[in-house]
């Protein structure tokens, strides 16, 4: 009798010991793995702060007023800037928005109201696919589509390439914002007898306007930082000077359309393009300018991103009550 009871207790003791060992091991694994996930998060944030900090540090040293108000000067001369690239970035982004926004917003209306029809599914799918197409391939496409038939590189071709890149972002963010608009608003308008298009344009769109604008801004920010699609569409142009083109156009008494054509129909530069070209040159002043360009580009894009997200978040909270 006594022997069996003692074996049982001994057995139980072993089990308990084993359990304690296993559970402490499990607890340790738990702690270790969970802290590893935290470390991974920190690890991923290191490059962010490193890049932002270093670009601010380097770019801040070389950034000055000349950078913004002069076109490039020949190497060895003091005080050149990248005005041509800044103008080019603005021109390309502006024209690209003009091209991309109307179809983007219209397609978003379709996607928001007909998400379950075959065409709606196909639209969402192709939007996703289009956003995954490499930007350099878009560049090749626009080269074959516009540059080759026209016979020369142009800011217009660059803007078309940018517009194709912006389209998926615009559609997706606009669709999301349109879906946030309460159904009651739509129904009230339809109930008052307004046709669908009137409801969409005068009721739904204004209600979602600030969100849509933010989405468009985000897509512009994304496109403005792209280089690859401009390499063989806009090409780059160190002598581009918007003011001079307009002034000489006015002096020659050309029509407004002729002047606009001159603005868009020649190669232009853009900030990322300039950055890329300068970074590959062996001259210290060029590399300094490319750091300054990186600073301007990065700050503008990050600020747009941060403010746009703040805005959207704020709005979502308000709409959801």
């Amino acid at each position: 009798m006594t022997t069996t009871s003692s074996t049982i207790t001994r057995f139980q003791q072993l089990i308990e010991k084993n359990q304690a060992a296993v559970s402490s091991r499990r607890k340790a694994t738990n702690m270790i793995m969970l802290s590893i996930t935290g470390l991974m998060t920190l690890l991923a944030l290191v490059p962010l702060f490193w890049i932002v900090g270093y670009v601010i540090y380097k770019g801040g040293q070389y950034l000055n007023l000349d950078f913004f108000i002069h076109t490039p000067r020949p190497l060895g001369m003091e005080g050149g800037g990248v005005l041509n690239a800044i103008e080019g970035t603005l021109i390309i982004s502006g024209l690209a928005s003009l091209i991309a926004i109307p179809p983007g917003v219209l397609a978003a209306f379709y996607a928001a109201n007909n998400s379950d029809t075959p065409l709606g599914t196909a639209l969402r799918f192709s939007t996703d696919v289009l956003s995954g197409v490499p930007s350099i391939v878009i560049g090749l496409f626009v080269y074959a589509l516009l540059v080759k038939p026209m016979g020369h590189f142009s800011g217009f071709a660059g803007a078309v390439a940018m517009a194709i890149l912006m389209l998926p972002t615009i559609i997706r963010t606009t669709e999301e914002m349109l879906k946030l608009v309460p159904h009651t608003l739509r129904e009230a308008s339809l109930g008052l007898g307004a046709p669908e298009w009137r409801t969409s344009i005068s009721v739904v769109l204004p209600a979602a306007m600030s969100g849509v604008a933010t989405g468009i801004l985000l897509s512009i920010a994304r496109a403005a930082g792209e280089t690859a699609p401009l390499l063989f569409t806009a090409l780059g142009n160190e002598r581009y000077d918007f003011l001079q083109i307009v002034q000489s156009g006015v002096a020659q008494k050309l029509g407004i359309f002729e002047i606009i054509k001159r603005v868009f129909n020649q190669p232009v530069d853009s900030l990322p393009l300039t950055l890329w070209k300068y970074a590959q040159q062996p001259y210290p002043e060029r590399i300094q300018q490319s750091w300054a360009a990186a600073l301007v580009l990065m700050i503008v894009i990050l600020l747009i991103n941060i403010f746009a997200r703040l805005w959207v978040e704020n709005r979502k909270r308000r709409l959801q009550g």
Partner: protein
Amino acid sequence: MTKYIQPLPETHWLTRWRRAIFHGDLPWKWLIIAASILVMVLIFAVAEMLWRESADARTAFGFGFLTPTKTPNWDPVNDKFQSWPFIYGTLLTSLAAIVFALPISVGIAIFMSELCPEWLRLPLNWLVELLAAIPSVVYGLWGIFVFLPLVVAPIAQGLLYSLGAIPGIGSLFAGPVPVSGASRLGAALILTIMITPTITAVTRDVLLAIPNNQREASMALGSTQWESIWKVLLPYGLSGILGAVILGLGRALGETMAVTMVIGNSIEGTASLLRPGYTMASIIANEFAEAVTKLHSQSLIEIGLVLFFLTLILNMIARFLVWIVARKTPQEARA
């Protein structure tokens, strides 16, 4: 006596048509459908255009253009082109980037969806997304002057002395490491940083979509938090995570500027991760604007075509996988 023009009857097709037009809904519908179709047409147009523009290269080189070759054969002077070094460079750097990025991204996603307090989730999410917002050229610039000499070169030296001596996989880690650090490894590491936000975002969404009863059931059976993540949540969302990985792979394949700036741009025969190389995107970026002969530019366009179809197929697979997870879980399930 006045002659009245009889108005058309209500049921006449012209009346209905006229009303539809003036009411405005039909044109509106056409308009938005046309805009939607435009997006689809764009994709087909890209495929068609690249296909047509690369016709001569395709007939001249056939499938041999894409197959593996022992020695690099890219000779613009004699018009001989084979794209294997670039395909190899793209695949190697992208796969290496996925291998590096996967544990990091899944770790972040787990931390963001399961562990971190509510107030930290949003700022963290933003920070990771800002990483994706930094322009690719800025990555490249930072890569050339900071990342390559300070991070990549030491890691490459370490790999050369540790793994380079092992027979078999040693050829993947053969030296000598370039002094500047410009290598396929550098490209892979830059890509790692750039695709981490993509994989993280999708994985986090997948984890957040898993219904809470899965977590509760696992916890109630006595598993620790890590065990329920590892044995329940990750298998549950596996196809979604796979989709995230493929999405990241697609991004890595097409990334151009940063890779072009750090990979060293050299066509040589070695297979080593520690040597400079070329990718499909970077050869296009470097040579297309200066391509002289017709066959040269057509070959580059054909590389673009391959890149397009590669990313197209990967994207389709990825979306399909993510869609499977989304369909499996009703939106209301997660309280």
